């Protein structure tokens, strides 16, 4: 088989390796920085079954089921997604699998697009699942292959843990394109796979046995690079790449031990390289997962060394040369002088809702509708999606957004503790991910709240993956679950939107029951992908424009800009959606130009 080379991001490399390893079932839920893994599996392996599941738990179970039947399963999620899938994940370590199961945990160190930067290597320690960590893009490919091999060899799940600068770094990767999906067959082994207490107790023993065997095996998955002296630096993951470059540049000679499996760290891996060593530095990104294990091994084997780790290398944020060098140089008694210049403190440039985004219109309508019933100061229980940006001015319509599906549970708690009717705001994909149970709870426990579903027909934030809302009607779901008040409105129709919000609020106040209103209009980026020809454009009639500022300061479409005389103008980024037309109280905005074929259908998908 001739190796090929391709310039690709780490996530593509992982997808290629999964296909090469014979993956037959791959599932996930989109989330940065994991999304491109599942997206690319299909590209490398057109005959692999690939699925965007409704959430990470289902995705996990899908891959787990494939592995249970002897097939090769892949589940790829972001770090917080693994929290959602953690229930079956712990079970998978008990039962083991017949085929192979690789779990990619794409951790977002520095929180580029996440609510936290949890270090999922702890899941490995907690659930007894080995964790392999690539240190660059090529090793992401190589170690993905290894992860499938280890899983198949020991009939045990394996976590491949990446961080943002593995998955979202582009480099030339050498790979092979051989593949043949390894599918399963129906295997009946209830004594293993039915975790009734008696089976679970027997599985537990086998799990611990496998854990010992795996631990022994993993001692070979490391690279020892001796370079003299009585110090050793133990490292893994992306930190290794920073370390190697820093040592070379600074001309520091020291022994380096890179562990490709950072959980569990076998005793032999450390003890084989510790003779004559007096000083140890553990260098790792985020939490002291390696450090704890290494310290434990040294202590239990009576190795008295000077030991450093998180006292020199910060826990917080992704690895950088600045963090590494400050700690590394301190370890060697040298001084690191950082950069000379400082970033200019400019006005922050937060991400913004796109031109044509229906969420902007929804937030505008919600605010106006609630004002009609003096509820504009309600608690806005928000959620995870593009609409989380509604927390920013001028809208400020997300008072919390803590985790996927949080809007409904948090709003229930806020209502119970304050007796004030809250507004829960959730997107369509998030609704099916983990909001739907919150609706059931609102009916079951009778929560007086306004539930606004922003249905843009898409899992938009991660790049317009499909959403279950295109197959299942959210209104019907809510009615079937016992919500008596369900209305749908078009967010671009300001009057209808305001009225829908006002009437729902009045209903909730009167009946003290939950109401659902659904703002339904497609994601603008999805619309643009569906039409071929030029879109119309909106224009401001400067004779009518009074410079009232509503369109650019209160509606804040990025295409609408203020002129020096405070009047508005609309630039080339306008997509002609027309949402601003009704926003202008002076009828100064109009849309000109032909609508392309399929325009209305795309918006109303």
């Amino acid at each position, binding site marked *: 088989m001739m190796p090929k080379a391709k310039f690709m991001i780490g996530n593509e490399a992982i997808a290629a390796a999964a296909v090469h390893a014979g993956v037959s079932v791959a599932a996930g839920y989109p989330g940065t920085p994991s999304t491109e893994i599942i997206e690319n599996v299909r590209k490398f392996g057109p005959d692999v079954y690939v699925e965007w599941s409704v959430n990470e738990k289902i995705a996990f179970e899908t891959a787990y089921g494939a592995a249970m039947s002897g097939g090769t399963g892949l589940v790829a999620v972001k770090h917080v997604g693994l929290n959602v899938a953690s229930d079956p994940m712990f079970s998978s370590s008990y039962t083991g699998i017949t085929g192979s199961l690789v779990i990619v945990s794409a951790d977002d160190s520095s929180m580029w697009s996440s609510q936290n930067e949890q270090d999922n290597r702890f899941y490995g320690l907690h659930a007894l699942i080995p964790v392999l960590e690539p240190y660059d893009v090529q090793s992401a490919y190589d170690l993905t292959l290894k992860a499938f091999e280890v899983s198949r060899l020991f009939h045990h799940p394996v976590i491949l843990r990446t961080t943002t600068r593995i998955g979202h770094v*582009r480099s030339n990767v050498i790979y092979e394109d051989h593949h043949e999906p390894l599918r399963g067959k129906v295997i009946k082994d209830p004594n293993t796979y039915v975790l009734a207490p008696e089976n679970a107790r027997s599985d537990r023993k086998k799990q611990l046995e496998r854990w010992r065997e795996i631990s022994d095996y993993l001692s070979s998955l490391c690279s020892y690079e001796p370079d003299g002296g009585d110090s050793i630096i133990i490292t893994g993951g992306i930190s290794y790449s920073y370390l190697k470059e820093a040592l070379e540049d600074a001309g520091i000679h020291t022994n380096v031990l890179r562990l490709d499996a950072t959980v569990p760290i076998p005793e032999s891996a450390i003890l084989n390289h510790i003779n004559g060593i007096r000083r140890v530095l553990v260098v790792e990104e985020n939490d002291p997962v390696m450090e704890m294990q290494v310290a434990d091994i040294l202590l239990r084997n009576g190795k008295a060394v000077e030991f450093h780790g998180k006292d020199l290398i910060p826990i917080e944020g992704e690895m950088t040369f600045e963090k590494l060098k400050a700690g590394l140089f301190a370890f060697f008694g040298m001084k690191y002088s950082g950069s000379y210049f400082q970033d200019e403190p400019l006005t922050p440039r937060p991400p913004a809702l796109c031109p044509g985004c229906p969420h902007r219109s929804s937030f505008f309508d919600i605010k106006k509708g609630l004002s009609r019933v003096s509820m504009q100061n309600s608690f806005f229980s928000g959620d995870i999606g593009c609409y989380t940006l509604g927390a920013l001015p001028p809208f400020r319509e997300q008072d919390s957004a803590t985790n996927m599906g949080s809007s409904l549970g948090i709003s229930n708690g806020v209502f119970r503790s304050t007796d004030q009717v809250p507004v829960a705001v959730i997107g369509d994909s998030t609704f099916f991910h983990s909001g739907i149970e919150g609706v059931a709870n609102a009916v079951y426990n009778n929560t007086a709240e306004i539930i606004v579903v922003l249905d843009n027909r898409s899992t938009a934030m991660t790049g317009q993956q499909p959403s279950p809302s295109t197959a299942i009607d959210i209104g019907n779901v809510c009615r079937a679950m016992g919500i008596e008040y369900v209305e749908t409105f078009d967010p671009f129709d300001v009057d209808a939107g305001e009225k829908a919000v006002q009437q729902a609020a009045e209903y909730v106040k009167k009946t003290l029951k939950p109401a659902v209103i659904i703002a339904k209009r497609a994601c603008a980026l999805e619309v643009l992908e569906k039409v071929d020809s030029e879109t119309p454009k909106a224009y401001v009639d400067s004779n009518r424009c009074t410079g009232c500022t509503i369109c650019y300061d209160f509606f804040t479409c990025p295409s609408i800009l203020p002129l020096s005389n405070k009047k508005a103008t609309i630039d080339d980024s306008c997509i002609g959606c027309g949402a601003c037309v009704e926003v202008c109280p002076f009828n100064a905005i109009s849309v000109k130009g032909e609508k392309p074929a399929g325009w209305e259908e795309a918006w109303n998908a």
Partner: protein
Amino acid sequence: MGGGMERINILLAGVGGQGIITMGKMIGNAAVNSGIKVFVAETHGLSQRGGSVQVHIRIGNVMAPLIEKGKADYIVGLEASEALRNLSYAGKGTVFILNKQTIKPVVPKVNTPDLEIVLQRLHGFRYYLVDGERIARDAGNPKGSNAVLIGFMVGMGFFGEMQKKAFEMAMITDPNVRCFNAGYAEAMTAKKTDAPEKIVTG
């Protein structure tokens, strides 16, 4: 592939939606076409929607993806003011390549950053101001200012041994190749006349 070439650190700064990730891809592909090791570090997700975006490009004998602060050889402001937001990556010898464009942050009651103020703050640095939008428009691809800036940098000789051909092959579309060549021509003119180059010593 690997060493063999001196290290080049390029920080691209701009606004999500400007084509900054594509710009990183194009430069990265040119390095691959030249047989030189390269890392391009991107941020995805929310950063794509009108927010500040940075792409780190490291070429040559490199192992890690992110540039060390103070060590960028070139800072490219695809949106001029975004270069300032990343000043900590500059050292005394850093060269700035600024696209002559400023974009208003999508925040109420905030004005578009003033280009003159941006240039004042860069007092003491060597910088080039390139009218990427105009050059791209004239070359027939209004969205090709990223390719224009690459062409300009190649024309100025900022990419060491990497050949012009390697970049042309990396431009993805023909309109981009035209923009690239227009940027290249702009650099040739600049070298002759010194016109768009500003070197202000403090």
